[in-house]
């Protein structure tokens, strides 16, 4: 009987720890969503072609170059994410095309 109660207590403790972690993760994700929404809005404002009036190819390239130099990834792997670790081989290759 005591053993069963101990087991139940252990399980509840584990559950509580997991729940606390989940809550923390949830609030982190909520903040991340908010940040991404802001970033997305800003990015959309920066790309002229995205609003519905496609610009010529060169304009698009220039916009990409500008985005890259402003510190964002333009490669397929991480498009739109902040370049927190400096230069990116994939973005550079795209700019060189």
């Amino acid at each position: 009987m005591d053993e069963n109660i101990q087991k139940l207590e252990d399980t509840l403790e584990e559950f509580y720890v997991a729940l606390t972690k989940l809550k923390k993760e949830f609030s982190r994700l909520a903040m991340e969503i908010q940040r991404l929404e802001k970033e997305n809005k800003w990015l959309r404002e920066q790309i002229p072609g995205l609003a519905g009036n496609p610009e010529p190819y060169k304009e698009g390239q220039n916009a990409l170059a500008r985005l890259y130099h402003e510190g964002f990834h333009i490669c397929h792997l991480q498009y739109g994410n902040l370049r927190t670790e400096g230069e990116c081989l994939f973005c550079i290759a795209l700019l060189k095309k």
Partner: protein
Amino acid sequence: MHFVCEKNVLAAALGIVQRAVATKSPLPALKGVLLETEESGLVLSGTNLEFGIKCSLQAKIIEHGAVVLPAKLLTEFIRKMPDGMIDASSHSDNPLNINIACGNIKFDLSGYPAEEFPKLAEASSDAARLAVEEGLLKEMFSQTEVAIARDETRPILTGLLLETEANKLKLVATDGHRLAFRQAAYADNTELKAVIPGKAIREVSKILEDAQDKKVEICLDDTCVVFIMDGIVLSSRLVEGKYPPYQQIIPTDFKTSVVADAQALQAALERAEIIVREGGNNLVLLQVDQGITVIGASQDVGRVEDFVPAEVQGEPLEIRFNVRLLLDCFHNIKDQQVHLDFTGPYSPCMIRPFENHNYLHLVLPVRLS
């Protein structure tokens, strides 16, 4: 369960298997080593659910059985035992309690049922199989492993791409700032592609020997890879996803090409690193003109300027690099001369051994804002 084996053999096997054992896990069995007896001897297994290692060793089996014992405790105890034979047996009334004896020393260790130990990843029966010379694979891994991404923001880059095509075995790794590529001739013409987790590659590299007469068997299916070595099996899940098209980022036209003595350039970079490391910026400036001048400078620390004679073709150039990334390439180049090809001060530099076109590194320069 009852077996007798040599202490040093058991200690060595535990040392290998322990690399796969989870250090933190809510499942106690995951922090343990599974000991199983077979007709031929003892089999030890450890896993952290990402990858697992299975090691077979010679032992005299007196009674068959299986148990999971705490890895850390068992390894420490066995290491501290005097040289000689180890006799391990389970208690008749409690098979999970193992008595381990060596000479006058005896200790009891409580374990967990073998059924609680997760099954290690196994390649399916129709998995593709490759046999590669052990020494060659070790060299190929060491040349490419440095470029595998450590940070998890782009999970696909935390793995090493292994592909076979047109009678070539190719390994590719990139963390977005540098790329390492290595290829070797391979007899089979089957086309394979898999991304193996960097952690598994680093562990396999530690186990592999320089031997040229032994072969490693690599089994690959859609979800897992298994490396079968001499008495040791390492299995790992593959990284899911599509590896980015790396061929597109390898430049083919260059504005400046340099051939220099690999050792002299490496030594110059190592000297510069002493200064820049102290200053905390890790940046070196390469002035490419009549040769290569390596300049390392840190405010409040000092400055080093080192001229390395080199054969330069094309435009003169000034370019800055993280010295650690350059040295990682040079540590794996055994040729006397090295090729450095540049396409501009902000584009990746291609570094490759002069006579070996099967190996190359791409390193991005650092742009000062």
